[in-house]
């Protein structure tokens, strides 16, 4: 039985192609090492908040931020001129929107980051992916991660970041200012019994925040305490449990305070929510979305919340006089009393007390 023997030429072609394919990885890997630009002679080794040792070129001229909170912090430190890129979600302050975008926090474009030739990439351990860290390492781009879990942690984190970026004085200034304001707040409300609150991140399903998050700590600083005691960061909460615990207030973070009232109305019609007194009586507070970001601006949200939870401690006029540098809306605290549902329920005399007044109960 004769068999076809594969012609020599064709087998030679096959072998060559296979060899080329096998040779590809080492070839380009070799080019990788020689394509990196000449390294800056000065380096500084720091340990970031994820426990990694990071080699940071000195001085740091070009920064890319992969988290909105870090973008805000860079602006707060006055170092925005060095910020060359940030994520699609970096929207505060408004100038941040004008920076070159590198994509999302979870899915940034490595190419875009590399094209900006950053000296340092700032990352938040709770927001960005571990794979992004490893990829940046592999490309030889330094990445520094922060991971604050408390309000004090946010302040010290910002201070450390300022130091890493070569502007320790700015860090000291910010830290001092924030500490002062927090101390002032504590002076006013520290002795008062805390209000029991439910911080609702999402309502369907009901998701709140865990006890080890900086948001929970922020609530505490504002004179409230989260009724949710969970070790998870974003626990899903059972409505029955909330009804059993009956919080004094609901707390929402929203960019537009007016949008909360109609949502709450819709919720109040649902049987599961109606049994919660705070929902039925419309006892809620709205603060800015700054509370979701571990950045200096969170202190403003804390102050705002404190005024809504303990208005009696802020007897003097709280509105236009208070200085809020660079802060957008939300409106001054007592206006939340006026965000009443525009239906017949609001025409009753005790509507005012439903807006969040501490004397409703």
């Amino acid at each position, binding site marked *: 039985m004769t068999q076809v023997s594969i012609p020599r030429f064709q087998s030679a072609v096959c072998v060559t192609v296979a060899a080329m394919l096998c040779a590809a990885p*080492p070839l380009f*890997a070799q080019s990788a090492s020689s394509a990196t630009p000449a390294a800056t002679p000065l380096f500084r080794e720091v340990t970031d908040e994820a426990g990694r040792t990071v080699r940071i070129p000195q001085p740091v001229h070009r920064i890319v931020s992969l988290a909105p909170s870090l973008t805000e912090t860079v602006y707060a430190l006055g170092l925005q001129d060095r910020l060359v890129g940030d994520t699609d979600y970096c929207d505060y302050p408004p100038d941040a929107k004008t920076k070159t975008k590198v994509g*999302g926090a979870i*899915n940034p*474009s490595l190419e875009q980051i590399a094209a900006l030739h950053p000296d340092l990439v700032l990352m938040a351990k709770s927001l960005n992916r571990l*794979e992004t860290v490893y990829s940046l390492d592999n*490309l030889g781009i330094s990445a520094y991660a922060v991971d604050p879990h408390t309000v004090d942690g946010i302040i010290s984190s910002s201070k450390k970041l300022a130091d890493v970026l070569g502007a320790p004085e700015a860090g000291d200034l910010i830290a001092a200012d924030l500490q002062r304001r927090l101390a002032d707040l504590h002076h006013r409300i520290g002795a008062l019994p805390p209000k029991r609150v439910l911080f609702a991140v999402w309502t369907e399903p009901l998701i709140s925040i865990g006890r080890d998050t900086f948001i929970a700590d922020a609530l505490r600083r504002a004179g409230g305490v989260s009724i949710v005691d969970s070790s998870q960061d974003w626990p899903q909460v059972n409505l029955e449990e909330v009804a059993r615990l009956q919080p004094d207030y609901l707390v929402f973070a929203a960019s537009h305070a007016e949008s909360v009232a109609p949502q709450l109305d819709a919720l109040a019609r649902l049987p599961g929510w109606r049994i919660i007194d705070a929902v039925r009586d419309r006892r809620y507070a709205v603060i800015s979305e700054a509370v979701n970001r571990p950045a200096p601006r969170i202190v403003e949200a804390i102050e705002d919340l404190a005024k809504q939870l303990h208005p009696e401690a802020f007897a003097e006029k709280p509105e236009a006089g208070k200085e809020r540098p660079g802060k957008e809306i939300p409106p001054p605290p007592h206006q939340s009393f006026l965000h009443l549902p525009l239906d017949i329920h609001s025409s009753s005399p005790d509507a005012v007390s439903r807006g969040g007044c501490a004397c409703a109960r």
Partner: protein
Amino acid sequence: MRPLTFRRLFIQCFILAVILFVVVVVAMKFGAVPVSLYALGRDVLRFLLGQTSQISTDYGLILWNIRLPRILLAIIVGASLSVAGTSFQALLRNPLADPYVLGVSSGASVGAILALIATPYLALPPAVSALLTPMGAFLGAAATITAVYFLGRREGQIDSTTLLLGGVITASFLNAIIMFLLSTVTSGNTRGMAFWLMGDLSTSYQKSVFWFLGIGFFVATGAIYTTATDLNLLLAGEKEAMHLGVDVPRVRLVVYIAASFLTGLAVSVSGSIAYVGLIVPHIMRLIFGSDHRTLLPTAALGGAIALVFADTLARTVVAPTELAVGAVTAVVGAPLFIYLLRRGAS
């Protein structure tokens, strides 16, 4: 009567290789950062001539360190998934089989999640800890392959129906574990897991990973290719294949291990990218026929083309934001699959 000859096979593969080359060039040109064809050509020339130090540093890092490795990753993953899908469709005698049907990707995902959870507790040098997730995923895949093998045996040999049942049940079980882990574990590292589960080629890996992938791919695909004619006969029926001279238990074992290994490789570095392993074999069958001597290499090339193309879309459509490539393959793949189904039914 026109039986397959080596020459015809070579020409078919050559055409696909040319298409792949064109797609690669296009992929090199497009991205979040625009690169002109002239600059690209110039740098390629310098690269080939060995003048690597003269490659423009503007583009050098992006092209050679980010884009090209990513394209290479897409080629290997696409080829692996397609070959694995073709093999499983033959092994299980089921045109709906894809590389994940036997639970390999679910096992890899569990392994990856466990690795992510464990990372903070292990003090490892950075080069090694970067490999922890792919290694964990690969080990998870290997464990699943072993478990499903023992589940899928009857009278000491792999039986197609039992294997399919065992694999599907294992996959469901592991998926439930994934859901459980993701909803209860507090480690922040698992946050990006949803992205990984959808399939994602954006991670930049060390060259040792590429060596492993390349060698593993060629070894496993080579092993499957030696059974190509056996697979043709297997599709006619197991009893018949045996009577025609196929050592059915041996072929089943080789194909099962090699195809699962390919799937494990692909999933370890890129998560579970949908539809590539299911649809590319069908398309190649429509064009080139069901002879596995042609089908296996053309599926490999076709899978590479498809995934490079999909990945280029994923990173350019809403640049600089990156879509998960698995989302792109699903959006393109599902309608394509429905079209193929209807066409096959008519």
